[in-house]
């Protein structure tokens, strides 16, 4: 097992949809890997996202509208990852890093609230003979427990990760091609989807703001994306506004519909600019 520095601020610029994605990005960033290319497959049209939550009634924790980043990383030879079920914590010398699934009761007792999903993992960052330190992505935290305490919190499943090497130029080119195809083919119509569920609306925005931040980070490698900043900030404000209405039990669905119409409109404008700029840069008709 390799020790890894604890720097919780590192999470500020990593955009994940799950704890496993968070820790994988944390590890790649700490090892100076060019993980930004992995965001290439993270484009989903706004209509698809809205449909997923508002029509199909699926939930945030299991969003599968874009491939998980670890799948992309494995496919391009960046890392190897394996999930194992074992009753004791046993680090495998063939792997570098270990994520541990912890009991929901431990999470609730320690952090005062349940995790987004029952299978929540933490990342082991350091150890000595008697202690283990882990970091948690949400809420951000690190703790050092005795081996016995950690065994008690451990829920019998571990994800092992081994770094294989930074993304090759060939992979970066393939991912770029994939990104250009995705934005060209995505369903990007101004569909009207009735909004009757505040939580689904909030979760749709939660996913949208992560995916559009990924798009910002990804495209910034190729073109200037300053034009997206105001839109990204707008998404955060809308997300907070919906959550505020939900907590106040004052959900105003006509206001929500207006908000989503505005977001959809701006999202389509942003995509058009990205298509034009990337098309100019790479001479493709997208």
């Amino acid at each position, binding site marked *: 097992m390799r020790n890894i520095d604890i720097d*919780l*601020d590192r999470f500020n610029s990593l955009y994940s949809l799950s704890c496993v994605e968070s820790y994988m990005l944390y590890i790649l960033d700490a090892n100076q890997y060019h993980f930004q290319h992995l965001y290439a497959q993270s484009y989903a049209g706004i209509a698809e996202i809205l449909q997923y939550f508002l029509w199909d009634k699926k939930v945030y924790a299991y969003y599968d509208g874009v491939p998980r980043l670890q799948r992309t990383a494995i496919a391009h030879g960046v890392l190897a990852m394996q999930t194992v079920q074992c009753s004791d914590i046993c680090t495998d010398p063939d792997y570098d890093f270990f994520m541990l699934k912890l009991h929901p009761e431990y999470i609730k007792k320690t952090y*005062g609230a349940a995790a987004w999903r029952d299978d929540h993992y933490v990342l082991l960052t350091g150890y000595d003979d008697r202690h283990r330190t882990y970091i948690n992505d949400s*809420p951000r*935290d690190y703790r050092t427990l005795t081996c016995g305490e950690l065994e008690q919190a451990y829920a019998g499943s571990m994800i092992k990760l081994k770094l294989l090497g930074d993304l090759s130029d060939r992979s970066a080119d393939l991912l770029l091609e994939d990104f250009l195809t995705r934005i060209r083919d995505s369903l990007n119509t101004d569909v009207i989807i009735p909004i009757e569920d505040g939580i689904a609306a909030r979760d749709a925005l939660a996913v949208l703001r992560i995916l559009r931040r990924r798009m910002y980070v990804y495209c910034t490698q190729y073109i200037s994306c300053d034009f997206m900043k105001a839109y990204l900030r707008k998404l955060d404000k809308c997300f*907070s*506004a919906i959550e505020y209405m939900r907590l106040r039990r004052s959900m105003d669905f006509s206001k929500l519909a207006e908000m989503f119409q505005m977001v959809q409109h701006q999202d389509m404008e942003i995509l058009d600019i990205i298509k034009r700029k990337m098309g100019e840069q790479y001479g493709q008709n997208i």
Partner: protein
Amino acid sequence: MDRTFEIMQIIASVSIVSAEDICLEDTLASIGIDSLKKVELIVALEDMLDITFEDADLDPAKLTCAGDVVDLTQRYLPE
């Protein structure tokens, strides 16, 4: 009247640390307050201090550390 400590206690109530351990410079994220919790904090401040924030003041980008929350809240409290 400076009610910083009272505000810090409310911040602590939605964070994962105690009020004594929070510094004004601490980012909200570093004390376990993510974007959802930030809204919970706003609601808690309004309820416990009997104030109502203007929409324009609730830009998440403007509330990054504990000090930002204290400064904003102080502006709404009676002199």
